[in-house]
């Protein structure tokens, strides 16, 4: 009887330790998840910043200034443009 009790006690202790460990593991994983969530947020913010930057660099007035000023491009004359429709056949 006493042996069985001791055995059960050991099992209970093991279970308790297991619970503590798994709880600890869960918390570790959770904090990792939190970190990743944070990173996702940061990346989203970064995306916004980059989008902003892309918009600023690609500003129509800036593109036009460079195209006309530096590269010497101009809008083609309507007579020299040919409109191609999507279902155009030769």
């Amino acid at each position: 009887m006493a042996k069985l009790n001791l055995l059960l006690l050991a099992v209970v202790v093991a279970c308790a330790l297991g619970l503590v460990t798994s709880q600890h593991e869960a918390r570790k994983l959770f904090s990792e998840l939190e970190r990743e969530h944070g990173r996702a947020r940061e990346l989203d913010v970064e995306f916004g910043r980059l989008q902003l930057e892309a918009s600023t660099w690609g500003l129509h007035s800036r593109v036009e200034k460079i195209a006309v000023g530096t590269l010497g491009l101009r809008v083609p004359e309507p007579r020299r443009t040919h409109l191609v429709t999507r279902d155009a056949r030769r």
Partner: protein
Amino acid sequence: MSRAAQGLVRLPAWRARALLAGLLGGFAALVLRAGYLQAVDTGFLQEKGDARYSRVLDVPATRGRILDRQGEALAVSTPVKSIWAIPADVGAAPAPRRKLAALLGLSGAELSRKLADASRDFVYLKRQVSPETAAAIERLKVPGVYEQQEFRRYYPAGEVTAHVIGFTGVDDSGQEGVELAYQELLAGRPGSRRVIKDRLGRVVEDVESIRAAQDGRDLALSIDSKMQSLAYSALRDAVRLHKAKAGALVALDVRTGEILALVNVPSFNPNNRARLTGAQLRNRALTDLFEPGSTLKPFTIAAALETGRVTPRTPIATAPGRMTLARYTIRDVHPAAMLTVAQVIQKSSNVGAAKLALAMPPEVMWDLFRRVGFGAAPELGFPGAAAGKLRPWRTWRPIEQATMAYGHGISLSLVQLAHAYTVFARDGELVPLTLVKSPAEASGEKVLSAETAREVRAMLELAVQPGGTGPRARIMGYRVAGKTGTAHKQENGGYAAQKYIASFVGLAPASAPRVVVAVMIDEPSSDDYYGGAVAAPVFAQVAQGVLRMLGVPHDAPLEPLDMPPGADEPKEST
């Protein structure tokens, strides 16, 4: 030795019992209290326990981005830090204070003033500083100085889209324009959740979500930033060239009812709103009313055609180029003895339009005006969109009906005017306007018969041919239809003699209209002030670019346009 001498006194037995009973009583009280706290009043201890490790975290919701129809960002929120302090905790040592002030861009005295009231426990030192500054301040480790995450809105297109997009206040809520109109959608909902934190402040367990955060949704507008930019620069140049006070332009997609471009001059930079004047902030195209002048004539003519009593070829006696009605004289700039209905538009005859108007009951005219949207604010959900003034027809006197025929005594916004022109572009259908991207073909409400709309369109095409009032509106490769307007400005209840509003509303290509562009220029003060000279070229420039960007096939031979020399152009007086 006696016991007394030994210092031992025999105590009475009741004292021991009393002590025992006292101790037991105390114990019992403790047990009862413990039992009460554990079993009955559980909240208190629970609360104390939670306070040790459980925290409620706010989950911020980021504001949605505003994009143009091509996905280009027009408004983006990025996080910035705000610096705040608890004045009582900030040390009095001068060295860190000096460094702090330098980083914040404040003078020492200013900082001291902010920190003067020691009884307060929250003082903003500076809101929305850059991440670099915030990091530098953090490194200083001044006690009692903290930072707080906030969002700041950036508008990469700046002044070009300023009036459409509007802006947000320092608390990130919309104050003007689309930012205000779509506040609900853009803002999202901040949430909060309860978590367990460990000794190091790390979140180790999610206990419950008190309120789920919902990020603001992104909003794609109908605006095309390229067209917007083109329209802005064309309008700005015209306003500058003609030394005008202001200007506005609206471009609509006829098929979908989308507003492709909406610009106002003068504009402002929404990223730096330090010195703003009311004139800069005004969204003239939507919120300002003006008397449209001749650009309203096509609606009078359409109403007359709808009665069936006249056709485009019906002659109207307009001699001698003026007409007196109740002490008021209506004049034509180019007096003619006889004009057909079509020529009334082409030459922009006030007398002709007035005679056509007087020949029909006021109710008919009023009904058409109302049905094309005059007197009712466009359903854009845009804050401050003006409804215009269209008085009920029962109160019209004949002189008023006559002047309304050519756009005086009635006021509307440029957007309303452009919107109304979709009737001619869509064979009589009025398409609902939208500022949000909706590429599907919209269905409109039938306002005019298709024949009338086509007839008016043909007249409008004549008006931009040589011999009409707006030949400068023509574009190579496309047939254009449109109407010029030059209205006297209203001032202090009367009309100002030397102040005009030049306007042009047109559609292109005339064979199968795709866009309506309306231009309004306020007080052009150089020599030319006629709509055909001031506003029509802006129309041509913008419409050409818009048609190219939309990839609309040409419907006219690609021949260079011969512009009549300035003096030969017929001009209109309203």
